[in-house]
């Protein structure tokens, strides 16, 4: 399969590392030989229709911060042009998220679909801004559109709902969907430290962004709730439809009071047909959503199966590549290519 990767940060590099390390496995288990023919970042692109030398590309990108230094690299080459010009089966859109405009991911995805290329993305922005439009465009163009990594990181939340629980009507999805806030709340509860100190340490450990506002204020979780509402519940929901409360006001005393009553405070996203909500909630110990550290957890309420819960790591480039790779294998299977 010929692949174009747009965006070469942690996730782009992570999936390339997986291609390198798991080449034998992918061929043996799935008959899949991924060939990365072009990679674009904000500075330019590297292209080789015969397939880029990935170990070399990774070394160059890690050294210089861009792929432009790859032999024959094109400084200033625009991703949009690359998508049009390079022949490929699948485009990975892995640029940073902008939840207001969806750009630049939104334009990349549309252009790829218009060019008849399948799209795999982890980018919440385009999904939050234009889910319906992209879904319709993919159908119209007859291409596959996958976004497993956008919710739950390594936890296959969307696939579980759409592929494995397909016989059920889903009445509610509840989840701990943001690893950063879960890490903060877990440490607040365990150590009684104020939020600011834990946030600073989380930043030092690479567990929180430089600007953790989107996490702390519940916006990231609200984006995921919006995506689940659209993709799983089939509601045409917008981010502004989600009632959002973050964790900013949660104090160490509040976590202690909860703990004394056998409860934990978790930032929970809830998607139901009549209500989309994000807010801190009390979760009893032993409850499927009572997961610690950076773990994510999601519970589905179902008419046949009752309740199904799934737990795992919500972030990290290696973990997320599990979802990206799963999408690629699934497209490969679907097309039999």
């Amino acid at each position: 399969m010929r692949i174009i990767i747009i965006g070469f940060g942690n996730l782009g590099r992570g999936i390339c590392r997986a291609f390198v390390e798991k080449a034998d496995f992918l061929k043996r288990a799935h008959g899949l030989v991924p060939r990365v023919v072009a990679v674009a970042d904000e500075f330019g692109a590297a292209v080789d229709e015969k397939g880029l030398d990935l170990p070399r590309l990774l070394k160059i990108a890690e050294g210089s911060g861009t792929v432009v230094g790859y032999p024959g690299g094109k400084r200033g080459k625009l991703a949009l042009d690359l998508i049009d010009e390079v022949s490929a089966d699948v485009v990975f859109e892995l640029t940073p998220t902008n939840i207001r405009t969806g750009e630049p991911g939104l334009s990349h995805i549309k252009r790829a679909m218009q060019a008849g290329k399948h799209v795999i993305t982890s980018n919440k922005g385009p999904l939050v801004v234009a889910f319906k439009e992209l879904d319709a465009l993919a159908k119209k163009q007859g291409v596959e559109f996958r976004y497993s990594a956008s919710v739950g990181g390594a936890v296959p939340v969307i696939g579980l709902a759409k592929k494995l629980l397909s016989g059920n009507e889903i009445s509610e999805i509840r989840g701990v969907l943001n690893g950063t806030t879960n890490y903060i709340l877990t440490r607040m509860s365990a150590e009684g430290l104020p939020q600011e100190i834990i946030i600073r340490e989380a930043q030092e450990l690479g567990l929180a962004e430089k600007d953790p506002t989107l996490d702390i204020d519940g916006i990231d979780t609200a984006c995921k709730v919006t995506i689940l509402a659209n993709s799983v519940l089939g509601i045409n929901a917008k981010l502004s439809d989600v009632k959002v409360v973050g964790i900013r006001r949660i104090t160490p005393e509040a976590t202690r009071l909860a703990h004394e009553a056998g409860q934990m405070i978790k930032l929970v996203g809830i998607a139901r047909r009549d209500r989309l909500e994000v807010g801190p909630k009390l979760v009893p110990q032993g409850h499927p959503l009572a997961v610690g550290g950076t773990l994510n957890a999601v519970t589905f309420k179902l008419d046949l199966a009752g309740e199904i819960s799934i737990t795992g790591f919500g972030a990290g480039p290696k973990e997320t590549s599990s979802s990206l790779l799963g999408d690629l294998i699934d497209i490969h299977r679907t097309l039999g290519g």
Partner: protein
Amino acid sequence: MLVKMVMELEDVPGQLLKGLEPIARYGGNIKSIMHQRERKTPLGRLPVMLIFEVRDQATLKRILAALKEAGIRVTQLGEREGEILTTVLLVGHIVHTDIRHTIDQLNAIKGVTVSELNLAVGSMGRESSARMTIAANDRELAQLAISRLQTIAEKKGLLLVTSVEAI
């Protein structure tokens, strides 16, 4: 509405099911079953203590009739009032915004009582936290209390943290 019931069963297989079936039939939600095998009655019957939730008094009457019809002897029956316990947290300037008034507003609902309050006063300039346990006679009243509290919290600028299992 929570019901506590002790029924006496003969000590042969199938009896427990016979006793539970009428409760299930009328939508009763069984919370706990306690056999007391060591405490057989002089007639060799087994007392079984059940706690279950039913919609209302009328439903309970239907269940009792069905048990009687099935030949099951009910030896104790108690409606457990105030037995839906809900825990919530409040964060904000709780004392300054008159916690007494907040509690009174909830206690004013018939069948609802604030049964416990734990207050952790925040350090200087910081917000305080409180854990409140609300006892209600049934699920609807508990829900009413929570939505009343939500309104009060919004008015007073407090953050209300409810249970993930609450609607």
